[in-house]
């Protein structure tokens, strides 16, 4: 995650915009397709879009400086002269051309563009043809009618009328399509109804691509459109949430990873190499709820923003005893044992040889938690399913055993990951051992008592809420990235207020992590609260205070807060993720089990790599 952002930052740094300065027909076509997309996505600005056309020359920097100029720019209106502008990124071959060759280079680009112009025209004509089948004609754009294409006889709760204002009013749309323009997923409305809209999106992507560029984003007054191309998939986010482009792109990456977790990267590439216009929905059918769930979590859970895992606060003695229970219930090829309560991590233990090579990334854990949340309808059974952890290895499957330990309440969930497809009965047996041990130690009732904490426990009067994420320091290098945060309490108890606070945090986060002007410390006086964000080499901290706090007060409060966290560290975080070795005789593995360890590597772990 972090690395990706960094790369993007560099890419932006070397961004050069090739100026096809005269408005050539190709650019007009781009303008048309943009406004067509605009018609559909944000009709209020249609007229202006059409007048404005597209400005490809606006340097990215001026745009960024608009955003970063003012402390209070969150509430400020975006300057209206920059309603629609695609930010394009040049690839190296353009920048390495000597200046003298410019002329020929330009003509080459023109050729490409006229080709792609044809392509765009074809795409649009195709889209229109589809619509004409309906016989709907009028002054409005044909794309507006896209939704009527499907007979409404098969309406489900998922199928929204994509022509309705309520559909457009959604805060954040996410679309996934294949490079051939085939719809794969839409967060709202059915993919069929949106096939022409997605066709236009693909036309935009291909058009910019034909000029050796990559389309990254389009800004309008109300919306930000962000594009992400990953292998044969194109992901598009249309957001009115005022989040930064990087944040939105990171969210699209989560969607991509969730798809990978179900199908693996290797199989997706194989499928599309074999058949360019394959309908991936055949394989993803039934998984829409998992993607819906992910997007809801991304919007409401700061774990995704911070790329860190939130674990349930627990007395370290209890956490240790749970870890020991997990450590004792092992079987060959078992790699991770994870205990979850109330959708938060209790503990995680890992096979020794695995942790020496790599660690479990927060993203992978988020995807696992989301999978559990989305598949919990029938909770009495024991689930056995293949799942890929994209950051661990995007091309291979683990086999996940999922079972609840406290039916019928179903709050405590055990997740065991094995590399052996056939190991269900062996792994299920581990669960029974864990269950027995937990009954013996009365663990379930102790877990039931565990809960998140209140900010009042910190004992700082003006502090309303905070998020604290310690960074890896050398001595716990291979540790899971975590963060801690109290419950959101009044005045942030309603859903709207929670979202408002999260939006403020997202804004602070985008300022801290801005690629053009990263900041270390921000003191932000908002309308109804004061926020302070601080990033050092040791931690990243976001705090929210009552509006009347003074700067000096806030600084003192943070000192107190840091001291409190230090004191509570053992309870708030998983300090030392325990390891085990899945050798046949675990009692002897502590000393001299080297050769046995090799064995377990051979029959299990290597098959993954």
């Amino acid at each position, binding site marked *: 995650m972090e690395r990706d952002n960094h790369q993007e930052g560099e890419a932006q740094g070397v961004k050069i915009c090739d100026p096809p300065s005269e408005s050539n027909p190709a650019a007009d076509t781009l303008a048309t397709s943009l406004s067509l997309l605009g018609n559909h996505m944000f009709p209020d600005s249609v007229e202006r879009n059409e007048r404005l056309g597209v400005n490809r020359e606006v340097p990215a920097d001026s745009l960024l400086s608009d955003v970063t100029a003012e402390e209070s720019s969150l509430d400020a209106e975006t300057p209206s002269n920059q309603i629609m502008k695609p930010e394009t990124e040049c690839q190296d071959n353009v920048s390495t051309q000597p200046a003298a060759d410019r002329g020929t280079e330009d003509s080459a680009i023109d050729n490409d563009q006229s080709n792609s112009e044809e392509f765009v025209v074809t795409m649009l004509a195709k889209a229109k043809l589809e619509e004409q089948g309906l016989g709907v004609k009028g002054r409005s754009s044909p794309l507006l009618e896209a939704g009527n294409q499907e007979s409404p006889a098969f309406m489900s709760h998922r199928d929204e009328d994509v022509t309705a204002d309520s559909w457009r009013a959604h805060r954040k749309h996410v679309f996934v399509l294949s490079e051939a323009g085939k719809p794969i997923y839409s967060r709202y409305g059915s993919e069929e109804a949106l096939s022409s809209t997605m066709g236009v999106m693909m036309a935009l992507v291909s058009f910019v691509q034909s000029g050796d560029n990559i389309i990254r984003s389009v800004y309008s007054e109300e919306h930000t459109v962000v594009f992400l191309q990953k292998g044969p998939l194109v992901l598009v986010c249309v957001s009115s949430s005022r989040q930064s482009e990087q944040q939105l792109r990171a969210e699209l990456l989560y969607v991509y990873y969730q798809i990978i977790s179900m199908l693996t990267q290797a199989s997706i590439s194989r499928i599309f190499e074999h058949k360019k216009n394959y309908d991936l929905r055949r394989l993803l059918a039934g998984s829409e709820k998992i993607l819906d769930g992910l997007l809801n979590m991304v919007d409401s859970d700061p774990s995704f923003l911070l790329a860190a895992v939130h674990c349930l606060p627990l007395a370290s003695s209890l956490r240790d005893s749970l870890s020991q229970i997990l450590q004792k219930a092992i079987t060959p090829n078992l790699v991770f044992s994870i205990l979850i309560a109330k959708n938060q991590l209790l503990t995680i233990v890992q096979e020794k040889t695995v942790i020496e090579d790599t660690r479990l990334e927060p993203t992978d854990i988020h995807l696992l938690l989301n999978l559990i949340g989305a598949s919990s309808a029938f909770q009495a*059974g024991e689930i056995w399913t293949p799942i890929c952890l994209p950051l661990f290895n995007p091309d291979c499957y683990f086999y996940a055993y999922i079972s609840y330990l406290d039916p019928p309440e179903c709050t405590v969930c055990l997740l065991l990951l094995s590399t052996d497809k056939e190991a269900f009965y062996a792994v299920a047996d581990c669960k029974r051992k864990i269950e027995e041990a937990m009954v013996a130690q009365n663990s379930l009732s102790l877990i039931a008592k565990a809960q998140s904490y209140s900010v009042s426990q910190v004992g700082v009067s003006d502090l309303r809420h905070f998020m604290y994420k310690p960074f890896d320091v050398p001595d716990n290098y291979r540790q899971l990235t975590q963060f801690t945060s109290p419950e959101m309490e009044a005045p942030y108890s309603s859903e709207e207020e929670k979202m408002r606070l999260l939006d403020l945090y997202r804004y602070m986060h985008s300022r801290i992590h801005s690629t053009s002007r990263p900041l270390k410390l921000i003191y932000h006086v908002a309308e109804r609260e004061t926020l302070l964000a601080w990033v050092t080499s040791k931690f990243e901290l976001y705090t929210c205070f009552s509006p009347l706090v003074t700067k000096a007060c806030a600084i003192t409060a943070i000192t107190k807060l840091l001291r409190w966290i230090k004191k509570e560290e053992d309870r708030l975080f998983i300090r030392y993720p325990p390891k085990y070795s899945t050798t046949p005789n675990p009692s002897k593995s502590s000393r001299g089990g080297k050769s046995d360890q090799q064995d377990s590597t051979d029959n299990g772990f290597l098959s993954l790599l």
Partner: protein
Amino acid sequence: MPDMSKMKKPDVKVVLLGDMNVGKTSLLHRYMERKFKDTVSTVGGAFFLKQWGPYNISIWDTAGREQFHGLGSMYCRGAAAVILTYDVTNWQSLAELEERFLSLTDTANHDCIYAIVGNKADLTDSKAHLSRDSDGQSENQTECEEGRTEPEVLSACPTPPASPASLSGLMLHKQVTREDAVALYGRILRYKGLEEKSSLPAEKMCFETSAKTGYNVDALFEALFDLVLPSILRKRHENQESPTVDLEECRGVSGKKARSSCC
């Protein structure tokens, strides 16, 4: 597999197969928990242990999605009974049984029995509204209101039906008849190289059920369990004959003794 010995040993294995959205999970849920509720698409497969009299029957509820197709033959390994499920309102779901799912059963026992089950009978048949099973009808009615995941239902009856009579006007077209299912059963026997005369008759092995109302659900599972009883008994017998010592049994006995003596 040595690992298997440690688990409470299932006597026999039953597998539910069929296309997505035909209602495999709902069928099982109706049988196990006597309820019909909204389910989400199954991931992979889910394992259930059913205590049936003195016997432990393991039931695998598999995902119908193509995504998990590769796992199918694993779930079927050593199965004593396979329930091939289709949706009576969807002809394709019956065709899929033959095209996609039949080959998965190659890993099942050679004497495995096959049941063909047409679910969602309540949508096409008014008699399926009157539950033949012991469940209270009033309870069913309230649960029906929770609705289903399948789009057909929502479109067919936007408001829950007050009585079967009012529903009959909204009946969906039955795309798969019982004769189609019987014909498929014959083809399955042929695929397995079994004689029709020596096998269980199609009339006995083709069911139409409704997980929503409970119609025929218990009848299906109970009939099937009765039919696998011989293979349960044979397996138990084989285990007794087996020259290997069952450590689990010994440990269980000694463990109990130890506990009772110390307390």
